């Protein structure tokens, strides 16, 4: 790598910060090519598979409810929990960036609810769901 500009070219010419130009050639550091062939979500998928097994082992149906903010996820849940009261045991993992307002709404229906706050993230990874 060129010590002046950090570029990887062997021979090149470019301007320095003071406006003067320099050109040079150098041999790049010897490198080895490594095949990785790794799916980026492999780790997440493995945790997600464990989560699915956890649910299946308890004969629980897990439904992932995702939409844009304000579409009505919590309203749909409130109504569903009330309509199915006494027929099914329903629990909720509530994922939000910052607040626990939706947890409070679900809690008011009497269903067990856990709030997960994702901070700057806009999604729940499998390990967060597992922690919940």
């Amino acid at each position, binding site marked *: 790598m060129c010590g002046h500009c950090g570029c*990887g070219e062997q021979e090149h010419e470019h301007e320095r910060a003071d406006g003067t130009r320099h050109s040079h050639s150098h041999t790049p550091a*010897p490198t080895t090519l490594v095949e*990785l062939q790794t799916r*980026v*979500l492999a*780790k997440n998928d493995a945790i997600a598979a464990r989560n699915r097994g956890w649910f299946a082992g308890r004969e629980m149906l897990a439904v992932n409810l995702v939409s844009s903010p304000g579409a009505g996820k919590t309203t749909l849940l409130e109504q569903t929990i009330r309509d199915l009261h006494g027929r099914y045991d329903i629990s909720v993992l509530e994922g939000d960036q910052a607040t626990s307002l939706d947890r409070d709404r679900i809690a008011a229906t009497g269903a067990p609810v856990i709030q997960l706050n994702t901070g*700057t993230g*806009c*999604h729940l*990874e499998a390990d967060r769901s597992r922690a919940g």
Partner: protein
Amino acid sequence: MHELSLTHEIVAIVCQAAGDRRVHRVTLEIGERSCATPESIEFCFDIVAKGTCAEGARLDIRRTDGDDLMVRTMEIEEAA
């Protein structure tokens, strides 16, 4: 926004495989239907790689037809 998490995982995969050797180049394959935006991953990569074995590494991105997001290869310095 999930590109930041994806990029953290990319750097983790690369650094785990590289040990303490410096990484010069990483080649990624991003599928059209992977829901990952190449520009966002490029943007995140330099920041996430800072202070790791992949700091300053060049990121090459190939677009593919599928839905996979894969770390294909990396170039690392030869063992001393």
